């Protein structure tokens, strides 16, 4: 009985579709690796507002789809790397490796008559690594989506669409990052800055 009552406090999970349009991009002639760890591909956001029902948002599978489709359209060659690149597991046949990470997710739905939109924010970080795993640079992608939807008590279709819009916005952000293909290639060719020195515990 108690479980049944608790079950009533969880909304139907938001699961955005994995289908995205084919991007219109000029390919950059680079063999790029793509590494997506388990935390990324299975990311689920558990939203529990103080007064309100718990809302789960499946972010990982659709994020995997949008990053894979976008980057395969952006680079001449895109190889999926199954192991984290490092000194012991150098990514073979690629000039660099991209690793997307989900850092934070926030959602909001209309709560009053004047509120019109379901909203979603997804903060991604896109790391650019050498095949040996050293970070060359990283970009923060603050993706945002909104969708007009039913007021309080409506279905979660508006929220699902907002999450999907946020993922499309992430693709738009990547398009701007890689728009100047020559500058990106020059960055890859430049020497990698040394990592910052580790703080010593035995410092005087």
């Amino acid at each position, binding site marked *: 009985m108690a479980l049944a009552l608790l079950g009533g406090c969880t909304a139907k999970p938001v699961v955005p579709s994995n289908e995205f*349009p*084919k991007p*219109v*991009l000029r390919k950059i002639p680079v063999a790029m690796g793509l590494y997506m760890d388990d935390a990324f591909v299975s990311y689920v956001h558990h939203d529990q507002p103080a007064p309100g029902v718990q809302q789960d948002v499946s972010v990982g599978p659709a994020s995997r789809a949008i990053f894979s489709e976008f980057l395969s359209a952006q680079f001449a060659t895109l190889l999926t790397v199954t192991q984290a690149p490092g000194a012991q597991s150098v990514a073979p046949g690629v000039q660099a490796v991209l690793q997307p990470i989900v850092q934070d997710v926030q959602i909001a739905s209309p709560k009053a008559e004047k509120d019109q939109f379901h909203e979603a924010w997804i903060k991604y970080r896109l790391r650019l690594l050498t095949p040996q795993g050293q970070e060359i640079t990283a970009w923060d992608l603050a993706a945002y989506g909104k969708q*007009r939807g039913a007021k309080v008590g409506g279905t979660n279709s508006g929220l699902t669409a907002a999450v999907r819009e946020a993922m*499309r916005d992430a*693709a738009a*952000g*990547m398009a701007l990052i890689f728009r100047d293909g020559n500058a990106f290639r020059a960055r890859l060719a430049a020497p990698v800055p040394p990592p910052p020195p580790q703080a010593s515990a035995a410092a005087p």
Partner: protein
Amino acid sequence: MSASRVLLFVAAVLASACVTSKVEQIRQSGRSVTMSAGESVVILGRRHRGDRETEQSFNKCVSKSLTGRKLPVYAEQSFVDAMFPWLEPRTAPMSSDALAALLDDPVIAQRVRDTGVRFMVWIDGETDKIDGGGSVSCGILPPAAACLGFGWWEKESKYEVSVWDVQTRSSVGKVSVNASGTSYLPALIIPIPLIARTEAAACDGVAGQIGELLTPPAPLAKPKI
């Protein structure tokens, strides 16, 4: 009840409240642009502002009205998907100069040509309730029900429209429309809504002005037998 009273009742129900509408047009050239066969227009809603967004219903109304004026209209979502990700809120060009810069990319320019879209019509604006008051109360005491009261609300529809020619990468013209009106809901036993259709008036104004800027392609001549 006599027939005249029934007619009076129906007329009262179907009546609409008044809407005041102001439409302005700026043309870049003195005459309208004639479209060629195979070319089409796409109606696009601006979505870059966080707190507001042009209603899909307004874009659909303008599209339907232009189709009625024989202008070939390309579906908005199909065009946004075909151009993905260059018409997302973050990347969509905000001026005809930005459009020209976007079309400098040969891959993007080719995709636009593939769709057959010649004119991009950007709509920015929204319909808002700006004031309201009164109250209507209804009660049910089986087998009867009745309402009593008076309610009103004022709405304003403000839209700005830019028409760009993809072929010449320039602006064809701009249209702005501002329609406002007050709706009333008197209720004496039954409520009788008198709705001011500001969004529909703005839609008619916008579509009429676009129809003056763009001339539909001439119909193909029938072959002589």
